[in-house]
């Protein structure tokens, strides 16, 4: 239990962080509104609303803005709490939630075709030109070339791709709910986790990005959902192993899940030890499936890396012309590339931290957070503020989710400012 002084300090830090997060959220909201009047494309990631019919764009913006107001936010928070409770307790709710994601992807198919393999998406395996499946693993070629061809008499290629994308969105949503359910405590948090992961941008990969993006995204979410529970078991690691192995065989980006899998493997082995019964052996075999997948996919992956990735991304056939690398407009793009790379390698952080922590002879901050606690921020519309929660590993007898402001024997609202907050907190 934290001392009262530490609790107060946490509270103050939480307040400052909350203020920064609120300002950031409101700033983004205003910026997106203001960019509707900007005629340039400097911030083209934020000016989507400019291209929507004004009534539709501003209606959606207004819903977003209204959620920040306490009078709208309070009932919204209650609704979120109910949704979270339903997602925790009822399978029908989980299927319904996932169907919403699948339906959105299916109905709002990408008709612009700017991003991704639009010709293949429309015409399937019947379209063949050099480079169609240059970067594809055999499983991807089978799924996106041979299957649509075989089924072309029954299902048009475009419909086949839409069904695959909808199924991927469905799987992504189920994984997101699983992650939300794995953290015990407030049901609002369960709903927010599921909504953020499902609808926080990932749905877009299921409509217009490269062919394998939606399925890869679902694999990542599935792998994460199986290692999300605080008490790792060989059973859940086995499921994670299957998801990682399929991801590796399906696309070379699946190799990026290996750090996550290794960390989960080490943690499970330490926490659970090895079991010798038949079920335990089966789980262990499934948990180690990524090793077999790596061996099976190594040759194909290496040839794709050598023949395509190294040439296109590291030199030889750059997508940006000579002399354009260091122009003023190209520099931010390069910086974004590096940031994307850093983001991709985030799962490696625990390994890195573990190594540096061991060298220093003490556990690092990151390790302690990953093992014992994780800090999560959730937006609570009812209070128009972000709440900081510490999901700590408590004694088994009590809830695992405890607000940072909780002090001995008291269950105060997180980062509450006097009595106002507690009266607005969803019951």
């Amino acid at each position, binding site marked *: 239990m934290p001392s009262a002084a530490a609790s107060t300090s946490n509270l103050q830090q939480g307040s400052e962080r909350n203020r920064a997060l609120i300002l950031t959220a409101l700033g983004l909201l205003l910026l997106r509104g203001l960019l509707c009047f900007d005629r340039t494309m400097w911030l083209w990631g934020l000016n989507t609303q400019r291209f929507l019919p004004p009534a539709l764009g501003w209606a959606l913006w207004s819903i977003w803005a209204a959620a920040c107001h306490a009078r709208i936010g309070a009932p919204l928070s209650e609704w979120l709490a109910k949704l979270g409770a339903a997602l925790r307790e009822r399978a029908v709710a989980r299927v319904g939630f996932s169907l919403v994601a699948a339906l959105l992807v299916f109905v709002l198919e990408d008709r612009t075709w700017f991003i991704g393999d639009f010709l293949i998406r429309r015409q399937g395996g019947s379209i063949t030109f050099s480079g169609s499946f240059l970067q594809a693993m055999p499983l991807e070629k089978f799924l996106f070339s041979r299957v649509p061809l075989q089924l072309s008499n029954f299902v048009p290629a475009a419909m086949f791709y839409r069904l695959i994308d909808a199924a991927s969105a469905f799987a992504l949503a189920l994984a997101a709910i699983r992650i939300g359910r794995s953290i015990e405590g407030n049901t609002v948090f369960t709903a927010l986790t599921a909504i953020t992961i499902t609808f926080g941008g990932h749905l877009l990969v299921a409509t217009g990005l490269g062919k394998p993006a939606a399925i890869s995204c679902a694999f990542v979410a599935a792998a994460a959902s199986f290692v999300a529970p605080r008490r790792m078991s060989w059973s859940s690691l086995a499921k994670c192993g299957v998801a990682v192995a399929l991801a590796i065989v399906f696309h070379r980006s699946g190799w990026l899940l290996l750090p996550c899998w290794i960390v989960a493997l080490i943690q499970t082995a330490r926490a659970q030890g090895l079991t010798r019964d038949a079920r335990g052996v089966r789980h262990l075999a499934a948990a180690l499936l990524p090793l077999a997948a790596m061996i099976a996919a190594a040759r194909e992956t290496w040839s794709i890396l050598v023949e395509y990735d190294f040439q296109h991304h590291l030199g030889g056939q750059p*997508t940006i012309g000579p002399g354009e690398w260091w122009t003023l407009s190209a520099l931010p793009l390069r910086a974004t590339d590096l940031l994307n790379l850093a983001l991709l390698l985030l799962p490696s952080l625990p390994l890195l931290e573990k190594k540096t922590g061991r060298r220093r002879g003490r556990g690092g901050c990151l390790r302690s957070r990953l093992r014992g606690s994780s800090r999560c921020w959730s937006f609570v519309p009812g209070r128009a503020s972000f709440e900081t929660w510490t999901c700590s590993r408590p004694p088994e007898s009590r809830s695992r989710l405890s607000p940072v402001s909780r002090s001995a024997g008291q269950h105060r609202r997180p980062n509450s400012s006097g009595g106002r907050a507690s009266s607005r907190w969803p019951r």
Partner: protein
Amino acid sequence: MIPTLQLLLVYHSSGDGIERVVAYASGLPRRTHSELGQTWDFLSLRAITVRDWPSAASATEQAIRYEPSPRLLIMRGVANINVRDYAKARDSYLQAIQKSPRSSEAWLGLAGAGAYLGDSALRDTALARLSRLRPPETARRLAQRFQTEFPEVYPGTPSF
């Protein structure tokens, strides 16, 4: 969630989505040469796929500024035939032939442009050159496939 929904809606509405892509290519900041080439090439290809000929004509015009490849020149020829700018179509096919003299599509397109312009000498010369391409079966097959896909490139059935 709202930004995701906005982006899904923009890409779902082809008009709004294309407007965004055009703004990306033509607005500030100025994109790199190759990015602009690829973007206008995409816009050309897409416009032709959906048979939006005025957009195809203007997009291919832009794309050729960055990459005057025979393929894009032929695409501009097809687009210009469909917007009845036969003189510009003829010029496009002539430029394509300069770059790729063995292109069946360009010779057939030139013959078609000549026919539309009432220039029978140009039409007959282009058809004669098309029939002399080697190997003849391949040249004929490519020309026929081109006309099947874009019947308007030549009025009627060419004799070659």
